[in-house]
């Protein structure tokens, strides 16, 4: 009897060890992409909460089927995109909630976002870009973070895929289903707003970077 128990315990230990190994391997390859997956799913659902829910589903499915992933030298994101598309359509078919809760973002390809950019940067003449650049480069992470988080979550997700993850408009379009020209619109809007917020902060602090410290006291 004790031999059977020992044998079962040994089997459990081996199984547990294999699971741990699988998890370690999965996290090694996938955890650097968690944020990009989250952002792509927010872009896909046009809703932050639904996007995070979808991203969690996608990552759990990826873990479940990790043994089927074959690295062909391009990394896991093309494989992940298939999981995103399948999970999105499964969830929206079963629950019918994606369309209902989807936020409508301005998708008018004729919308002149570029003029928005020019307007957003109307602050430029107050200090001069060079001086603003110096002040902005000395802002701390919390101030940068506040500016980023002031942007609409869907625009933010799409823009950060472009800025942080380095995705091209076409690539973002493939993952999110947003037309590439609309991706361009959203990236411009978000980057313009971010730029405007940080430039405003620079003006607030003035050219002298030390004035920032004084004002924070």
């Amino acid at each position, binding site marked *: 009897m004790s031999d059977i128990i020992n044998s079962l315990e040994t089997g459990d230990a081996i199984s547990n060890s294999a699971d741990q190994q699988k998890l370690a391997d999965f996290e090694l390859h996938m955890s650097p992409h968690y944020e990009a997956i989250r952002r792509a799913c927010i872009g896909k659902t046009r809703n932050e909460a639904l996007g995070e829910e979808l*991203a969690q589903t996608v990552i759990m499915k990826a873990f479940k089927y990790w043994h089927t992933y074959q690295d062909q030298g391009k990394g896991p994101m093309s494989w992940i995109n298939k999981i995103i598309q399948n999970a999105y359509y499964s969830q929206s078919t079963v629950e019918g909630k994606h369309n209902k809760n989807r936020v409508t973002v301005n998708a008018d390809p004729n919308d002149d976002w*570029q003029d928005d950019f020019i307007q957003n*940067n109307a602050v430029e003449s107050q200090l001069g870009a060079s001086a603003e650049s110096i002040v902005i480069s000395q802002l701390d992470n919390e101030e*940068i973070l506040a500016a980023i988080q002031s942007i609409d979550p869907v625009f933010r997700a799409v823009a950060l895929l472009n*800025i942080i993850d380095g995705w*091209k408009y076409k690539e973002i379009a493939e993952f999110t289903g947003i037309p590439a020209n609309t991706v361009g619109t959203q990236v411009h809007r978000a*980057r313009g707003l971010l*730029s405007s917020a940080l430039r405003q902060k620079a003006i607030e602090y003035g050219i002298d970077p030390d004035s920032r410290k004084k004002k924070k006291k």
Partner: protein
Amino acid sequence: MSNMSCHEAKRKVYEYLGEELDEKAKQEVDGHLSSCSRCTEEFDLERTISEMVISSSPRLMQSSDFYNRISNSLRSEIE
């Protein structure tokens, strides 16, 4: 010498920085920047902002509990 105006150059700043422009458009912007210090400063400023956003990435990740939720879900999956 580029015929591009400052207004046109500024409209292309994000495509330029994100390497979305085709070679011809990129050369036009480069041509303008080589003769316009004001636009060069504007482009440098936008580049600085991009670098600041990239450097804030770890803090951005910490500000959300998404990573922890995923980590916990994966661990409960193998328990």
